[in-house]
């Protein structure tokens, strides 16, 4: 029953496919106006805004890239400077060490020379003193022995020539005895 009514109603209604010519006209004219405004004003404004943004962003990116590059360059520079300073410090340290070693060696040499010199001098002095002592001892011992012998013998060995001969013979004996003792 309802379906019958539906059919009746549909038959009573207008055909939805048949257009109202006025609506075609208004829609077409309205769309033409809209399209004109869009072409003339709206689309260019949006495209411009879009382009501006692209430019701005690209400019910003370029700026950021430049800043980055500059920062990198500065960093490299600092790194190079740091390396240089480190090398310099190393070099200075090395130099100081070398110099120190050199000074030390020099001082050692000097000290050794000095000590050698002092030893040499001491030897020489000792030798001289010994020679002096031997000479003076020899003379003294001669005199002493002579006076002792003359006292013991109690004869006037006043003859100097003879006494000198006796002393020399005694000393030669003494020396030969000494040498024999040393060789033994």
């Amino acid at each position, binding site marked *: 029953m*309802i379906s019958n*009514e*539906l059919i009746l*109603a*549909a038959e*009573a*209604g*207008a*055909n*939805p*496919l*048949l*257009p*109202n*010519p*006025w*609506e*075609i*006209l*208004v*829609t*077409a004219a*309205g*769309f033409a*106006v*809209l*399209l004109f*405004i*869009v*072409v003339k*004003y*709206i*689309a260019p*404004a*949006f*495209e*411009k*805004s*879009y382009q*501006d*943004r692209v430019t*701005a962003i690209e400019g910003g990116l370029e700026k950021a890239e430049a800043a980055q590059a500059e920062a990198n360059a500065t960093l490299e520079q600092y790194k190079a400077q740091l390396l240089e300073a480190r090398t310099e410090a190393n070099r200075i340290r090395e130099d100081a060490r070398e110099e120190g070693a050199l000074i030390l060696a020099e001082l050692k040499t000097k000290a050794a020379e000095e000590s050698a010199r002092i030893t040499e001098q001491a030897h020489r002095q000792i030798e001289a003193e010994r020679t002096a002592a031997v000479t003076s001892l020899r003379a003294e011992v001669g005199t002493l022995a002579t006076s002792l012998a003359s006292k013991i013998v109690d004869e006037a060995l006043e003859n100097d020539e003879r006494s000198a001969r006796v002393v020399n013979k005694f000393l030669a004996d003494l020396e030969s005895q000494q040498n024999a003792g040393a060789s033994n």
Partner: protein
Amino acid sequence: MTAFALPTATEPYVPPSISDTHLPEVLPWLAEYGTGFGKQMIMIILSIILIVWFFKSAIKNPKLVPGKAQFLAESAYGFVRNSVGRDIIGEKNFAQWVPLLFATFFFVLLNNLFGAIPFLQIPSFSHAGSAYAMAIIIYGTWIAVGVKNHGIRYFKLAVVPSGVPNWIMPLMVPLEIISNFIVRPLTHSLRLMATMLSGHIIVMLAATGARHLIMVQESLALNAVGVLVIVGSVAMYFLELLIMVLQAFVFTLLTAIYIQGALDADAH
């Protein structure tokens, strides 16, 4: 119009008909539909004013960092420009077609959405005349594009498929003529008109049906069913919103595809 009459106890349910979408004209006041200037035409003009007003004011003082309105407008413009224009027509030629696609999309979209706004409550394109007008404009446009780019040879390119054996041509050529030059504008317009009209009929059906069930019927159970119809119509409302947006998108997408086909007619 019977459905809006005062209810009587014995009143039968009369479903709404197409005639109910044809309201009396506004100028002259309450004149018979089709004889003057009606609500549907007012809404067409209103849509144009709203589109122009919104997009012009949104882009009046463009900022590098956009405000809410500018962002919304730019996103909408960018959607048509990139997702429809550039992706379909191609990087080389799309720029000059963006305004047409933009105008088409928002013209159809806003007029569809009118169907979801109380008091306006009629999608303009549920009236066949408007859908025909748009389809005709676009039909004329892509044919003109084809002829301009390929000369009169365009018609041969459009109806004679390449890479098809000759013996099948007598079958293919008439089919291509029918499909490209006759069926295409009809489906383009009727798809939009029919989806919008059906959505509108569902609104009318839900409204008159719920009113009948609640006001006319005396059984409490049927009254309750009427309330259910209203609850259900909310879900239908959101489905309709989806369809309104989708159909505006489809209509614009097809426009782009037709233009692309005419531009690159010799490419296949």
